[in-house]
């Protein structure tokens, strides 16, 4: 293999790994942010106790995928890290502030007694704002950070899409983890959010075709359209299965199908962006660190990757099953 293709192979491997971290983050923190968003609709404190208890042991590790993602992006694609974060200063800062609200509130509410309803609202609003900011960042990246009214509309749509998607993950997680009235409500939330998610996804796809540099160039390439069409079919089937399973009383099915929906969507995003990392602005090749850094990082992070996933799964296994009320 000649050195040029080895370099390309390495940077593409890292593009794939960053994508994997992104999916791990979006799916795992997505469901607990979704639980946070849905907590805004529950007025009974007992319900919120159960909802938060269902994510209490994992939210921190889930959020840590974002830190892993940030570090990996910084090391593997310093130019992309610097460009995205500087150019998206305001949404990134609001995102960080929202994550602070969410994380602090979830721990402080346990210690609180009289002020618990206030912390619960902080938790809910922090979760919602986090999702909104991530949607804004996604929209900005897809449109190559171009200004203008139409682009702003597109960004608003991606924000709605991310909020709906997280609500869907959160609702189906609650179907899996709760019982009784709360579970019934979660099934209703899942039905509503799967519909809004699909609607947003359709509008976003049309918008990408018309507004993003991706739509004009990438989607027209041979092969790309077929891959995207296949992913769209997978996503559509997953949506149908969510609806079916929610109404047939499935406990794990809705959540698992929602994960499939997310993985298909983000695979579509990765295929669309490739070979750019910021469409029209920065290519994977020009953003990548040199091969020695990419190899060193691959050895370091690649070896701990299975271990990381292993102990995360152990944690889910340990706290499996439906949550039962505990007395604080």
């Amino acid at each position, binding site marked *: 293999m000649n050195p040029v293709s080895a370099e390309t192979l390495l940077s593409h491997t890292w593009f794939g790994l960053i994508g994997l971290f992104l999916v791990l983050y979006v799916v795992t923190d997505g469901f607990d942010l979704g639980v946070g968003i849905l907590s805004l609709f529950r007025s009974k404190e007992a319900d919120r106790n159960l909802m938060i208890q269902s994510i209490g*042991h*994992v939210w*921190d*590790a889930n*959020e*840590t*995928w*974002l*830190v*892993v993602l*940030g*570090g*990996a992006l*910084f*090391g*593997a694609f*310093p*130019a992309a*890290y*610097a*460009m995205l*974060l*500087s150019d998206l*200063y*305001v949404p*990134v*800062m609001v995102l*960080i*502030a929202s*994550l*602070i*609200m969410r*994380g*602090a509130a979830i*721990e*402080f509410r*346990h*210690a*609180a007694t009289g002020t618990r309803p206030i912390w619960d609202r902080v938790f809910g609003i922090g979760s919602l704002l986090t999702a909104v900011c991530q949607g804004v960042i996604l929209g900005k990246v897809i449109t190559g950070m171009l200004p203008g009214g139409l682009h702003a509309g597109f960004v608003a749509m991606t924000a709605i899409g991310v909020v709906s998607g997280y609500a869907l993950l959160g609702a189906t997680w609650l179907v899996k983890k709760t019982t*009784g009235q709360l579970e019934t409500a979660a099934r209703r939330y899942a039905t509503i959010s799967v519909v809004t998610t699909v609607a947003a996804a359709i509008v976003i796809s049309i918008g990408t075709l018309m507004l993003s540099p991706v739509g004009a160039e990438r989607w027209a390439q041979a092969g790309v359209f077929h891959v995207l069409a296949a992913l769209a079919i997978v996503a559509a089937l997953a949506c149908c299965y969510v609806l079916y399973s929610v109404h047939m009383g499935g406990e794990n099915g809705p959540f698992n199908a929602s994960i499939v929906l997310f993985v298909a969507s983000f695979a579509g995003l990765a295929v669309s962006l490739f070979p750019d990392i910021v469409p029209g602005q920065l290519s994977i090749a020009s953003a990548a*660190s*040199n091969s*020695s*850094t990419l190899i*060193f*990082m691959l050895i*370091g*992070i690649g070896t*701990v990757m299975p271990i*990381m996933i292993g*102990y*995360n799964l152990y*944690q889910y296994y*340990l*706290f*499996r*099953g*439906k949550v*039962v*009320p505990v007395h604080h």
Partner: protein
Amino acid sequence: MPLDALHLARGQFAMTAIFHILWPILTISLSAFLLVVEILWVRTSEVAWYRHARFWSKLLVLNFAVGVVSGIPMEFQFGTNWGPFSLFTGQFFGNILGFEGAMAFMLEAGFVGIMMLGWDRVPKGVHLFATAMVTLGSSISAFWIMVANSWMQTPSGVAVVDGKVVVTNYAKAIFSPDMVWGASHMWCAALETGLVVVAGLSAYYLLKRRNPEFFVRSFKLALLLLVFIAPVQIWLGDSSGVDVFKTQPAKGAAIEGHWDTNAPGTGASWSLLAWPDKAKQRNDWSIEIPGLLSVLGTHSLHGQVTGLADIPVADQPPMLPLLYYTFRAMAGIGFLFMVLAFWTAFALRKARGRLDALLAQRKLLLAWVLAIPLPYIAVECGWIVREVGRQPWVVYGLLRTEHAASAISSTAITGSMAMFAAFYAVLLSSFFYFARRWLKNGPDLTLRPLAAPPRQSIAHATVEH
């Protein structure tokens, strides 16, 4: 870029870092302390150690939450506020931050749930393992962060190609000249923090005579560990000082208010107190001890110590009095801990295990209560010495701070700083509010560990109607 924006970006970094470091130092040490407590419980089966573990882990939960959320701005502000720095150093610095996230932060986060919520769910061996992993994760995290920061102090193992750092030798870049001293000094500072906090809070209960039999255990255990760590920390501080004079002469001269390089065959004099004045390029006044700086800074009688006068003004650090006095505060607190630890060890020996004899030592106990904020002050001072002392460089000798900041509008930075300042104020006051309640409630002396390891049916929780 405009100077104001640069100052704002530096102000934002300083605020974020000064706030964030308060929390991980306690996480590192309190989790290590809990590990020792849990080992004692597993080995002796004394329920008091179990209750200690449960009691102190409640403080750890509160502290951990603020540490996690305040750490996120740290990781992302390199990109938001310091884009050119990120671009310049990413191939090494970003790589190391990636290692920190994957090897350390995730380890901590992956086991903290079991540590905090898994008491009645897992056998005690598994719980001990989870505590060990949280301890290990927080310490590995400190290690990688210090690798990254030490490399900014004494960059090595890299070449600058096309305006970017390229790693030529990983071993040299990771083990940069400052790394071993910097990492171990910081790790011991973190350990001292937790031990002083445990000793201080235990002394508080002893002073109040609340559950003294219970708290004398944690008091003695913290003391036993401090008697070893406090002198080690002084030795590490001294050694890293010698290293600074060798690798960063401008910083060394600045923290000692030393202007004139000593002539060969003479010793440089050390000022006990002084007021360094950068504008006049001399000390306004000083109280000096002849010859001592050569001994302190080079461990030899006539060792040459470069003075600030021999360093171009453009390469001298700013805010000399700040550097001079934060350094003295840090070193003074380090010595105070050793004195306090030895005094207490002496008093404990005299008490010969009699609790009332220890409780009668009210001044000693009060001294420990008053010492609680000191490790925090020492750590903040140490970081100010480290970071301000490296100026005007962000990567010493390779990249000046003025070339490292992103072009962000002053309004955006001011706005986000005000927002974070408000958030930090809420976090800090909420933490104190809840910690105070935890302190008032005290330990639960009725807690008992589950007699038998949990069966499968307990793990599969069922709902009671």
